[in-house]
């Protein structure tokens, strides 16, 4: 199966699993894109911030993990869902 771009995959994951966390997303991507060195914590965080700023995804909840880092849970917005036609 040919892969979709990393940022597309993040939106797709959020649209399929409501309330998925940033750490779960990172874990999934690391398995799916083992050769992409750009798949790391900061890279994924940057994608999530731009997706949130333009209104494709939104936060459902935020907690602190045991290392004092933000654990964020996301869901797709109606606008984001309307853009899923571009992701197959």
């Amino acid at each position, binding site marked *: 199966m*040919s892969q*979709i771009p*990393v940022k*597309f995959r993040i939106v797709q994951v959020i649209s399929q699993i409501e309330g998925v966390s940033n750490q779960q997303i990172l874990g999934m991507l690391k398995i799916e894109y083992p050769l*992409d060195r750009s798949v790391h914590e900061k890279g994924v965080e940057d*994608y999530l911030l731009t997706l949130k*700023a*333009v209104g494709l995804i939104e936060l459902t909840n*935020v907690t602190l993990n045991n290392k004092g880092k933000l654990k964020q849970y996301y869901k797709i917005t109606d606008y984001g869902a309307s853009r899923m036609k*571009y992701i197959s």
Partner: protein
Amino acid sequence: MDQKIQLLLQKRDLAFAKKGIGSGLFTGAAWGLDGVLMGMVLGLAPFTNNMSIFAAPLVGACIHDGFAALWLFIHNVINGKWRDYARTMKTRPANMIMLAAILGGPIGMSGNLLGIYFAGASYTAAITAAYPAIGAILGSIFLKEKVSPRVWAGIVLAIIGSFIVGFVPPEGSAYPHFYLGIGLAAVAAIGWAIEGVMSTYGMDLVDSDIAIGIREATSFFVYVFAILPLLGGVAYQILFESFTTPSGWYIAVIGLVGGTSFLSWYRAMNMTGVGRAMGLNVTFALWSVFFGWLLNNLQITSNLIIGVVIISLGTILTIGNPKDLVNLRSR
């Protein structure tokens, strides 16, 4: 959510917004430097042999975008993103980015150069400087971007300032095809504005670093296979001659400055919205005065100083309060 989490979230969102504004300011400065350097190189052989008034700057733009595409590809290899080029090319948003590239790159640039030829540099600069306003209007319609009155005021001031910086009294009736030139300048302004809005729509999904890589490569190929053939053999002659002199290689290095500027421009549009990023990009007029003075003995006149002061005020208003930037669009 407890207070500590909210503070951490706010801090993170604010840092993101500030980074976007930083990119927007940087793109203006780098673009100003790029323009001054390109102007200096286009004054060297083989670009000055009067073989064709359009061919020389368009060949320069072709080489510039080709090398910018190469440097951006290397940047994406270093950052481990290069595999996304091929994956992205198969998607519909990539087609939008390529179409945007053609509108903003070869079409916008040709409109600008032909505008200068038919209507003179000052009127063309005045019209093309309006592109951020057109971009902000299109952004608020098609992307539902929030543009506050203060940001509008900032964009308008930055445009007025760029107009004053670029304005030189017109030289009588030397332009028999004046209105054609004005129309072509408008094509450039609209092309650049649509480029911003279309590519930003595409970048909702496409990584901005990949988007700009695709944009520069598309621009280069359209110049080589569509624009240069229209200009005839003279264009290829200049292209090949430029690499037997230092000029072509100078442009290769300038492509690094241009590529960096484009990278920041696309990042800024993706992070702070089209209206604001274009309002910040237009500060290149201010920077081109500074770099022109520093590198090319530009004489500082009173209208340059007035224009620069107005651009600076407009820029401060355009940046506004980064706290307003956390959600870019109203839905």
